[in-house]
Structure formats: structure tokens, C-alpha cells
């Protein structure tokens, strides 16, 4: 009999062949491949089973659903996920009582952990030794000896197509029964930036912390939820049982075990650089920004350096850099080659750090005039007590040159964008020289100032932002429709259109036939393509898609006209609210609007309430080339915040009602952002639950939105 065996099938065929040969040949005239494979799978499970332990926890937080108010509109969907209460799984990694498990199993910070070992009747009290924060693993220690340690499947032998079985202890309470099993294959290697093996065997809370096992009973890795888009112990749980599962190679786990045993959490190794553009796949790996006091800064890398080689590997694009850096830990060392201009430079043994000092934007204290064609930057407003004020800058002055005081002469400032770029290269505390042309008489003077961190203040009243003499239509704009303390909603009809707009204005709904998506845009009637407009992207609450558009447009009507803003609102595809994976299409809609109208890229804001606010956070962090501000009402951060980056600044305006049950978490979200040194404005609204802004907060928000281009 001639047998053809495909390459990928080799490992299991060998086992099946063994299983078949074990039976007497004569008694088995017709070998059954299914039987043999099934038997081999059960044998594999049985071989690893003694090392698969049951973990039970007590106490800890339980993320619960926010119940809708009685009679009122439905509340936001679940804030985060609700953690199950059943047993979870762990894998023995050393005979003297060390158990590795998925950090997901402890995400609710249980007060007590118990481990049951197969074949041993006693439950044992376990202690958390350390966490591997890069691979979302937790090491436990129990007081036990002579545990069974599983065989490791070497990483180099892992091939796509090999059988993979996921084993867990959640379903069956009895650890002397076989562990729960799901069958699939290895789908890919080197996933999640080189940290995980992918499988199509089902993975879920049923087996997180358990093992992905080969058909011959060796362990590929530890099953974990994972996502290449988000970090944190619960990232990737949303696709459970979806045929996309991950396991951290056991070989890698064992390699880090000595460090974990010391009880120190393992953190990701950070270089501290950010790319110049956002297209990490095509763009050459040129450093766009360097975090202060980071590994890169200490090694002497500079903005503009082009990374050509890391650890002897060529780096054609930025994503290659991410792939190489992905698996690395704090204190790991890199050898880098970069091109600085035409000069090749080598940096040997760059030691990665576990944390980076957050980048803090430097601040001079002015608002610039917009749409200003003349050279230099005209000052629209000077923040009281800011470095600019102290240096004697006045509204109406024109800044002509700006640069570090160390330079013999400050370089000229061509326009607003150039000014913003110039200050982004400086840190708070930097001494600068500024050449100003005074408003009256045009006298040119050079003053000196010391930059400070961006403060958390909003000017109460702002002058117009364009040179044209425009009289505001009303002295005191009526509180808009959607804002509380609504004065009856008697909006005045505006039928006195003076000029005919060239582009379509007003409230418009648009649909993308091909994608089946829709969004609305509100363009103020006084739209003028020569005036740059801010853009507020409104993320509606769950279930409000397509319903709240006109109301929101009305809410912002006066502000949009007076301060030149366009408002738009994409629509979530599901009634239950926004999903993270809608970011890409939403950003496409936003970019369409940016392309059609004159949009000031320094004032593009993601704004949302509740579930919409969570989406605003997410989109803000994941489309940083587009958004400069995120404003939320009653929303919490779904994921840990990313770093503040010099060339892609983000400012936050966060608010919540003091009666909102989520208010603690909202404050916590604010604190997380402040730890990352983002400029954050926080407003807790009195006597308020889950409503939209009150009038005072709304006005603060409008002024914040209008001052996002502060320098």
C-alpha cells in the first residue's frame, strides 16, 4: 500500500501509526483512522491531565450590568464584562508547587485562591507570586511536592496544521475526571507580536489557564485570551469560542519562570519611541517622537533617526520593529543600527525599561489666530499667568520667531502648524526666545520665557478666532435643546439667511450603500470654505443611532455657527451599542467629512455619552492621527490608556453626574489619564445621574473645544 502523507499531517500520523501498530494486526483487518485518532487524542489528554489543576476563588469584584432605570430609557450596556464565578484552570510548571494560569482568572482580584490537584483530595490555599504583564499570565504557589510537570512541545517544531487540544477544568467539578477538551489545529505561530500560538480549538473562560496540547501529549502553551488590538487581562475574551484562540508557548513561560519566582511582575520592555506617521506597515521606521528619559532617550537616539537594524535583523518598516519588540521584557537588551542623515550609527546594548516617563506637552500660553496667511502667528488670546503672559505677550501681537534660548537666534515661525511643531519638540522647563511684532506700531522685540506643563484650565470667554470682524449673533446664547435646565426649548427660527452658501449646509444624513452604514452631518449655515472649522464627532448612546442626530445638531447649532464647528454623528451597527471593531469604518466616515470641508485638524473631537463615550475614548486612542480631543459624559475607559505622544496630542474633557453609579469608575478613568500626563478637564455635575451636560458644564465644554489649538 502506498501512502501519501502531507507534511503538516506528519506529527499526528506518526502517533496514529503507533496506535494502530499497538493493536494486533490480524485482529484489525480494517484500520479505522477516526477511532485511532480519537484514541490518540484521549491519550494525549490523559497524559497532560495530572498537570491540569482546578482553581477556585472567593471574594473579589464582580462587574455587573448597569440596570436600566425604571420607566426610563434603557441604561448603557454592560460596563466591561461580568466575570463568571466558576472554577478556572491552571497548569503545573514546577514539581515543587508552582502553577501558571491566565491572568484573566484573577481579573476580579479575588481575596482567596484555592487549587485542587488531580489525584489529591485536599484543596490547597494558593498565593499569587507574580504576574507576567506582557503575556497576561499569573504564577501561583501552593504548598505541595512531587507534582507532575508536563512535557514541553519545542517552539521550533510547532507547525500550522498540527492537532491542538485545549484542556480545562471549569466544566467538571471532579479533577479526577478527564479535563474538558476541545479539538482543533495550530492555526498560526508567532501571533500577538510574537507572543502566542494561535489555534482554532475553542478557547473560553472554560479553559483559560489550561493547556494547548499536541496529539502526542506535549504542551504547546498556556491558553489565554489575547488580542492584537488591546491589552489587559480581559482583552480578547469577546471572541471566545470563535475559532480564534491563543496560547503562550510553554517554552517561553519556563524561560521566564526563574524571574517570576522571584516575585517580581514582568513588564514589557519599552524603547520609548513612536513612529512618525500612522501607517506602520508601509512607512519607513523613522522615529517621530521619543519619550523623555526612556531607553531610547538614554541611549541617545534622536527624532528623525531611521532604524535600520535591531539585533541583526533588518527593519524595513515600523511594524517589524513592533514584532521584534513585542515579546521583549524590561531589562532585555537591544542592538540598534540607525541612519542619522547619511551617517550610520550603532547603539549596542540598549537596555529596555519597564516604564516610560510620560511625555508632558510644553505650553506657552496663547491661543493663535486661525486662517492667517501672513507669516508668523497672531495671538488671539493670552492665558493669564502663563509663560506668555509673564513674558509680556499681548493679544494682537504677532509671534515671528520662536526657539530654544540656547540657539543664537530663534528660527522663524511660518504659521500656526509650524509653531505647534516647534513647541512639540520642547519639554516643560525649557527656556525659549520669542520674537514678537507688537500689535501697535509693529515694533519688533525679543522676549524670553520658560515653558510649563499644559494646565487644566479653560478660559471663560474667548475672542473670535479669525481676523475678520465678526459680531457674535447673540450676547447670551440660549441653552441648547439637549442640555439640561432647558428653558422650554423655545428655539428661535433663523430665517434671516444673508448669504447663499456654496456648499450644502444644515442637517444632512448620508449613507454608504456599499457598507450599509449611515451617518449625519450638521454644517452651520454660515459655512465658509475659507474659514477652518472644528469637527465634533458625536457617538450616540446605545440604541439611539439615527434618532438623536437632529437633536444633537440643534444642541450645537449656535456654537457651530459662532465658533465654526461642524458636527457629525456616525451610527453604530448594533442596537446594543458600539463595538471596538467599528473604529475603522467610523474613521473612514470622519475622513470623508474632513476631505469635503475645511477642517482644522487641531480641533477634531470625539464626543460621546455612556457607551458612546466609551467608543469616543476608544476611537480617540486608536485614530490618533485624526483626533485631538475626547469628550465624554458618564463613560469609563474600556482599556488602559495609551501613552501621551508629542506629535499626536490628545486632550480630554471628562464629566459624569454625582449620582451616576459609575462615578467612581469615571473618576478612576480620569486618574488613569492624568497618570499618563494627558491634559484632562474633569467636571462632576451636581444632582445629576446619567443625563447629558448641564448648562455650566456645556459652556465649559464649548470653550474647551474652541481652545484645543492652544500653544
Amino acid at each position, binding site marked *: 500500500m502506498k501512502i501519501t502523507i502531507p507534511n503538516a499531517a506528519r506529527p499526528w500520523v506518526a502517533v496514529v501509526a503507533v496506535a494502530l501498530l499497538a493493536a494486533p494486526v490480524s485482529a484489525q483487518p480494517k*484500520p479505522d483512522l477516526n477511532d485511532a485518532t480519537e484514541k490518540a487524542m484521549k491519550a494525549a*489528554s490523559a497524559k497532560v491531565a495530572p498537570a491540569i489543576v482546578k482553581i477556585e476563588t472567593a471574594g473579589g469584584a464582580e462587574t455587573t450590568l448597569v440596570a436600566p432605570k425604571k420607566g426610563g430609557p434603557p441604561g448603557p450596556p454592560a460596563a466591561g464584562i461580568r466575570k463568571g464565578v466558576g472554577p478556572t484552570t491552571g497548569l503545573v510548571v514546577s514539581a515543587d508547587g508552582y502553577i501558571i494560569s491566565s491572568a484573566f482568572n484573577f481579573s476580579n482580584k479575588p481575596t482567596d485562591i484555592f487549587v485542587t490537584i488531580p489525584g489529591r483530595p485536599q484543596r490547597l490555599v494558593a498565593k499569587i507570586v507574580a504576574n507576567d504583564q506582557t503575556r497576561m499570565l499569573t504564577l501561583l504557589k501552593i504548598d505541595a511536592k512531587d507534582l507532575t510537570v508536563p512535557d514541553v512541545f519545542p517552539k521550533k517544531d510547532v507547525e500550522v496544521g498540527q492537532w491542538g487540544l485545549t484542556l480545562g477544568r471549569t466544566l467538571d467539578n471532579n479533577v479526577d475526571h478527564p479535563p474538558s*477538551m476541545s479539538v482543533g489545529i495550530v492555526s498560526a505561530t508567532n501571533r500577538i507580536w510574537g507572543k502566542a500560538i494561535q489555534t482554532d480549538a475553542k478557547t473560553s473562560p472554560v479553559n483559560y489557564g489550561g493547556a494547548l496540547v499536541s496529539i502526542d501529549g506535549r504542551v504547546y502553551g498556556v491558553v489565554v485570551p489575547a488580542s492584537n488590538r488591546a491589552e489587559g487581562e480581559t482583552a480578547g475574551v469577546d471572541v471566545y469560542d470563535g475559532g480564534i484562540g491563543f496560547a503562550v508557548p510553554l517554552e517561553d513561560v519556563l524561560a521566564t519562570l526563574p524571574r517570576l519566582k522571584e516575585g517580581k511582575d514582568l513588564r514589557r520592555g519599552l524603547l520609548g519611541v513612536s513612529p512618525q506617521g500612522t501607517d506602520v506597515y508601509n512607512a519607513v521606521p523613522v522615529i517621530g517622537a521619543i519619550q523623555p528619559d526612556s531607553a531610547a532617550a538614554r541611549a541617545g537616539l534622536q527624532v528623525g533617526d531611521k532604524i535600520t537594524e535591531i539585533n541583526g535583523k533588518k527593519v524595513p518598516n515600523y511594524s517589524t520593529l513592533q514584532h521584534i519588540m513585542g515579546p521583549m521584557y524590561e531589562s532585555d537588551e537591544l542592538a540598534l543600527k540607525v541612519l542619522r542623515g547619511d551617517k550610520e550609527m550603532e547603539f549596542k546594548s540598549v537596555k529596555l525599561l519597564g516604564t516610560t516617563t510620560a511625555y508632558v506637552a510644553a505650553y506657552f500660553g496663547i491661543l493663535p489666530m486661525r486662517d492667517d496667511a501672513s507669516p508668523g502667528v497672531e495671538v488671539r488670546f493670552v492665558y493669564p499667568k502663563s509663560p506668555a503672559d509673564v513674558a509680556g505677550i499681548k493679544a494682537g501681537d504677532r509671534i515671528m520667531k520662536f526657539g530654544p534660548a540656547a540657539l543664537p537666534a530663534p528660527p522663524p515661525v511660518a504659521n500656526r502648524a509650524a509653531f505647534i511643531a516647534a513647541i512639540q519638540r520642547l519639554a516643560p522647563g525649557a527656556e525659549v526666545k520669542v520674537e514678537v511684532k507688537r500689535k501697535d506700531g509693529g515694533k519688533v522685540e525679543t522676549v524670553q520665557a520658560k515653558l510649563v506643563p499644559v494646565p487644566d484650565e479653560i478660559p471663560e470667554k474667548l475672542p473670535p478666532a479669525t481676523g475678520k470682524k465678526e459680531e457674535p449673533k447673540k450676547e447670551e446664547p440660549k441653552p441648547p435643546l439637549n442640555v439640561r435646565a432647558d428653558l422650554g426649548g423655545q428655539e428661535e427660527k433663523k430665517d434671516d439667511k444673508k448669504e447663499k452658501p456654496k456648499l450644502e449646509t444644515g442637517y444632512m444624513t448620508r449613507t454608504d450603500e456599499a457598507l450599509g452604514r449611515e451617518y449625519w452631518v450638521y454644517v452651520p449655515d454660515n459655512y465658509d470654505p475659507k474659514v477652518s472649522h472644528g469637527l465634533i464627532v458625536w457617538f450616540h448612546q446605545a440604541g439611539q443611532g439615527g434618532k438623536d442626530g437632529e437633536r444633537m445638531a440643534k444642541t450645537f447649532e449656535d456654537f457651530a455657527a459662532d465658533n465654526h464647528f461642524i458636527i457629525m454623528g456616525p451610527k453604530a451597527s448594533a442596537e446594543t451599542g458600539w463595538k471596538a471593531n467599528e473604529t475603522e469604518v467610523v474613521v473612514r466616515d470622519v475622513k470623508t467629512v474632513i476631505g469635503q470641508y475645511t477642517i482644522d485638524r487641531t480641533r477634531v473631537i470625539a464626543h460621546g455619552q455612556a457607551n458612546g463615550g466609551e467608543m469616543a475614548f476608544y476611537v480617540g486612542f486608536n485614530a490618533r492621527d485624526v483626533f485631538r480631543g475626547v469628550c465624554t459624559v458618564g463613560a469609563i475607559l474600556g482599556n488602559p490608556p495609551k501613552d501621551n505622544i508629542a506629535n499626536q496630542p490628545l486632550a480630554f474633557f471628562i464629566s459624569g453626574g454625582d449620582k451616576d453609579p459609575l462615578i467612581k469608575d469615571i473618576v478612576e478613568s480620569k486618574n488613569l489619564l492624568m497618570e499618563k500626563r494627558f491634559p484632562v478637564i474633569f467636571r462632576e455635575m451636581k444632582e445629576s445621574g446619567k443625563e447629558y451636560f448641564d448648562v455650566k458644564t456645556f459652556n465649559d465644554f464649548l470653550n474647551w473645544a474652541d481652545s484645543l489649538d492652544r500653544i
Partner: protein
Amino acid sequence: MFTRYTLLTVVALFGAPALAPAADPFADTVEKANKKLVKVFGAGGFARLNNYGTGIIISKDGHILTVASQLLDTSELVVHLYDGQRMKAQVIVTEPLLDVALIKIRVEGKKIDEDSGLDLDFFDALTAVRRPPAAAGDWILGMSNTFEIALRDEPLSVQRGVISAYTKMAGRRGIFEFPYTGDVYMVDAITNNPGAAGGALLDKKGELLGIIGRELKNSLTETWMNYAIPMNAKMTLKTTITVKDKDGKDVEQEKTVTVSMEEFVTKGAGYKTPVDKTLIPLGLGGYHGIIFVPNILERTPAYVEDVVPGSPADKAGLRPDDLVSFIDGEPIISIKALDEYMRKFTRPNQKIVLEVRRGESLQSIEMTLGQHPPKPKVPAPKP
């Protein structure tokens, strides 16, 4: 949700040249099984309730086993046989405790309790109920009309997977109430989708193992479950019935009732309700006498603050600062869970084993529960 709509895995197992042909190619197995299954159409079609499902033929004259769902709440029940024949059907009996129903094909001119004269292929239910259960790792085939892909004579969708576990259903307490508390098959194929309920879970030779269940969430893991009620399903209930004693007074008496699939299919075909399903109303359960720490959080762990002197807890030797972690092997995650466990699963005079964390070790403590002391302020109602 993504998971709910994962594509069906149709049998295409060994596309690559294999070592040797399997003795029972799935194609033959599936073709035979398909003749013993029907598509069921009934009530629904609004909200999230689908008006289609699946059923398993268990007699030659048209008894069909399916899930006791809202689908059956209609007088217009219709089944489609494998060959496309469209026939009317009628519910004969349902057993909510097993979540199953028996329906029968109605033939024009025949009474429902007469032999219908049909000669259908069927699964031998009595053999199936007596077969030993399958175990974790056994290969399975799931066959159902999931998502109503098949109409009339189109064959049902087939999924391949393995038994993940044969174990107690984890939905018995907490988030949702599911009456059946016996063992179920959990499988790794995404079998439980709209329309799949009532489908067949088969072993790889095509023998009937169980009935694919509804769409349910597992309260232990907060994930959707893929489960089937086994053909050997059995559950025992303790209940109290009120009987007259010799003086003619009403007294309560404990009674054990066993509900089994075997009884259901045997008696069901004889058109009788198999069991008396009067359930005991939940009382307070047994009394322990533990005073817990203030129950502030949803998941405040069951730490002992004190014990009532002379109470079962006192006699058993529980001490302040002990953490009650398990009762009779069941994990106790909070004070709330402990209260619920006591109420649902214990009675006065019952012996329970507590596993208690004291310092760094777990201790087993046996305790005989008592009667709840009368509440002082509420006057007892006069009989």
C-alpha cells in the same frame, strides 16, 4: 455576538489523503441519521424567538422527541421529513424537568392515539437511554436545522466536534433558572444556535447520545453553552407532599421523585404524564447559626464574625475569622451564595461538610443543621 454565528463546520474532516479510510465514513452515518430527523415549524417568528427547530423520530409511526420550547405553543405544528413531505404534528406530552417534549405526526383520518400507519426510520430510544454515557474526548456529530438552512428535503446541517465534558449543567443557580439539574454533554462544536434545539447529538457511528438543547448562558463562565440533554438523563427530586394522617390531619411527608428520559419515552408513548411534578416551595433550609461579617459587597466572602452560642456552628467548632469556602464540595463565593445554597439544598437535621479556611489551611468541618429559631417579633400564624 461573534460566537453565536460561527460558521457551521460541515463534515469535511479528512480532505487530505489519509492513512486509511475510516471504517464508518461520516457520509453514510449522516445520511442514515438524516432520515430519522425532522425539521419542526411552529410558533414564534417574532422578537428573538425563532419559529423553527429540529426533532428526533423515535418510533416508526411518528413519535418525535424535541425540546419543550415556545415553538410547540401552537395548534399548527408542522414537520418536514427528510424526503420533503410536510406533515402536521401534535404535542403529546412535555416534561419541563428534562426540557423535552414528545410530539407525534398526525395522519389524516387517524386518531392521534392510533397507529398512524407510517413506516419511518427511527432512532431506537430505549436502546439509546440504556447505553453508557459518552466521555470527554469522544467524537460527536451534531445534526440540526440550525439557522433554518435546510428546507423540505434538504439534509440537515452537520457539525463535528468532541465531548468537552459530561457533567452537571452549570446554569442551575444564579443568572437563569434551568429546571434540569442532571448531567449534560458539553460539546466543543458551536451546536446551540437558533433552530438547533431538538437536534441530535450522535457518536461517530451515528448512535443517538442526546438532544441538542437551547441557547443558554453558563452562569459559571458567562459564556454561551453548547450542550445536549443526554438520552440517559435522570434527575432525582426531593419534594414534600401533604397527606392526611390517621386522624385526618394534613401532614407533610418527604417524597423522592425520579424523572428519567427512559420513563419519559416509554410512558410518553402511552400518552401519560410520567411524573407528578409538584415541587416543594423553597423554605429557609437548614439553620447553621453563623454570624457573618457585614455583607456589603455583592461578593463579600463568607467570613465568620461570630457564632450563635449553642448553634450547630458553635457545636461544630467554627471560629471567628474562619472563611467558609466550600459546602459539600460546592464552592461558596460569597455570603449571598451561602445563603442561597442553604435555602435551596439543605434541610434541618441534614449533615453538611464545610471546608473552612483557617489561617493558611483548609479544614473540613462536619455540621448537623438545625431548625431555624422562630423569629421573635412576628407572631406565628394560627393554623
